[in-house]
């Protein structure tokens, strides 16, 4: 790909026949050109110190793409790097499951029982504006172990998102559907099981996709803060966030970028997995 891209003009149109034959889709061609151009700018800018004499502002200080690539190939053989992946993935998975397992029933309860809603929702709404990361010091104080304190912060991130999405979905259910069901003699339990639960699935799906993104953000930051500040060892702290922070502290700057891109991939695949799973659970949403 880089050969072709290197031969393509750096700006504008690639209407030449060979390009059109190779990559017929216009959108893909444009995307490839833009990405390649960005990589070139990055490479040139990052190495400006050497070929220009003085480094360009901001981009001159960045690690160059080739340095990043070299660092990454080296890290692929490093078990510590993969351990960071596993630690972060575990935290995200567990935090996400906890947020869904507690958030979904909580959201459904809020929508089903007005008394519960009147009591619980105001407290929920007062706590929600506090960013999960602001809870980190309090969390470290309250929870007995460091892992639990990180887990709590991660849980909060996903919890708010899922509750709000489920509540919105349940509130938006067409009341005529419920009315029709009642007319036909459905019990309250049947209505819940066969109307409300499937009805909120799409909203739950949206909530889960968003929550995974939020969870990743919180994981990375929580790992940086608690892993870095308390000087935790790789076994109790760790994770990709800690890896990034550690690389910064240790001066291995290309590793920072490796960590960033790794998290980007991990987040993307998590979201894609959630989206796929929800797509399987909601077959009626597919357009023919």
């Amino acid at each position, binding site marked *: 790909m880089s050969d072709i891209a290197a031969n393509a003009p750096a700006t504008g149109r690639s209407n030449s026949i060979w390009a059109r034959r190779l990559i017929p889709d216009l959108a893909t061609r444009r995307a490839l050109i833009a990405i390649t151009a960005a990589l070139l700018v990055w490479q040139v800018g990052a190495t400006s110190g050497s070929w220009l004499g003085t480094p360009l502002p901001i981009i001159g200080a960045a690690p160059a793409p080739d340095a990043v690539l070299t660092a990454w190939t080296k890290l692929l053989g490093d078990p510590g790097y993969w351990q960071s992946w596993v630690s972060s993935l575990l935290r995200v998975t567990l935090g996400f499951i906890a947020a869904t397992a507690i958030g979904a029933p909580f959201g459904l309860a809020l929508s089903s029982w007005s008394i519960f809603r009147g009591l619980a929702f105001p407290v929920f709404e007062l706590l929600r504006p506090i960013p999960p990361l602001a809870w980190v010091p309090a969390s470290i104080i309250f929870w007995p172990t460091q892992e639990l304190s990180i887990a709590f912060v991660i849980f909060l991130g996903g919890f708010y998102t899922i509750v709000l999405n489920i509540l919105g979905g349940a509130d938006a259910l*067409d009341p*005529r*559907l419920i*009315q*029709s*069901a*009642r*007319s*036909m*003699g*459905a*019990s309250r339990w*049947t209505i819940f099981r*066969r*109307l409300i639960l*499937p*009805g909120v*699935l799409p909203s739950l799906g949206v909530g889960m996709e968003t929550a995974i993104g939020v969870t990743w953000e919180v994981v990375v930051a929580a790992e940086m803060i608690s892993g870095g500040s308390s000087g935790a060892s790789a076994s109790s702290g760790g994770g990709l966030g800690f890896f990034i922070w550690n690389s910064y502290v240790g001066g291995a700057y290309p590793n920072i970028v490796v960590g960033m891109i790794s998290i980007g991939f991990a987040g993307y695949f998590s979201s894609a997995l959630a989206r796929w799973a929800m797509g399987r659970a*909601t*077959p*009626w*949403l597919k*357009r*023919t």
Partner: protein
Amino acid sequence: MTTQGKANAPAKGEIVLRDVCKSYGPRRFATGVIRDCSFTAEANRFTVMIGPSGAGKSTLVRLIAGFEKPSSGQILIDGRPVAGPGRDRLVVFQETALFPWMSVEDNALFGPRARGESEASSGKLVDFLLGKVGLLAFRKHFPNQLSGGMQRRAELTRALVNNPDAMILDEPFRGLDAMMKKLMLEYYAKLSAEQPRTNLFVTTDIDEAIFLADRLLVMSHIPTQVRAIIEVDLPRPRRYNDLFHDDRANEIKMQALSILHEEAMKGFSGGSKAAGDFMEAYRRRVAAG
């Protein structure tokens, strides 16, 4: 006047309204939607309510179905007061209320399953009805994979499986193209002849109304009341295309239209004095010239 099926069927599903009133809002600022509305939809007969848009007919439907309670007055089904929704009166709405996450088949079977009825017998009935409406090949489809007309047919099937005493249809064929509407009307008229039940049909289309009705209730503008009751004594079975070749049909149509026109004008000029003045001036000019 009645067809062969009706003579032997038990007369069930009679709907009676007595001085029904419905208003919304706190007492002092209440908006009266329905005021002193009384009528009877006789058992096993086709009663059609026709009235201008926004005239509270849908509110009446909701009250009869039991989704809301009237502010005052009585609504009776077979002599019993309406206390809430029930399988004896099923509603087919203007916009589809099919369950989007269930297939056509599961939608149709929802009622029997919800009541714990045997799937063997209800399954056969669903097959039969789906066959009659031509949806057998689409039984596993989801509602959003069906066209508007197919959705309406599926919804009719879902209601009819439960064999309600009364069917309440609130502008169910609105928005369908002319061809589909005609087919649906003739289909439903035929079905009602074969399986008699009390039908209460709401529409704004006079042709539709006269085609279907045994009795036509012409409704007023808000606050809703019955302005006129017209017995539609046209012979059955009726053919939609030929209906208005008949003098009697046209007579009924003119009668209903003049009342509807009056009521619609009230709605039109009701809000604006300028519009009212215009209407008055136009009327005078027509009378003079």
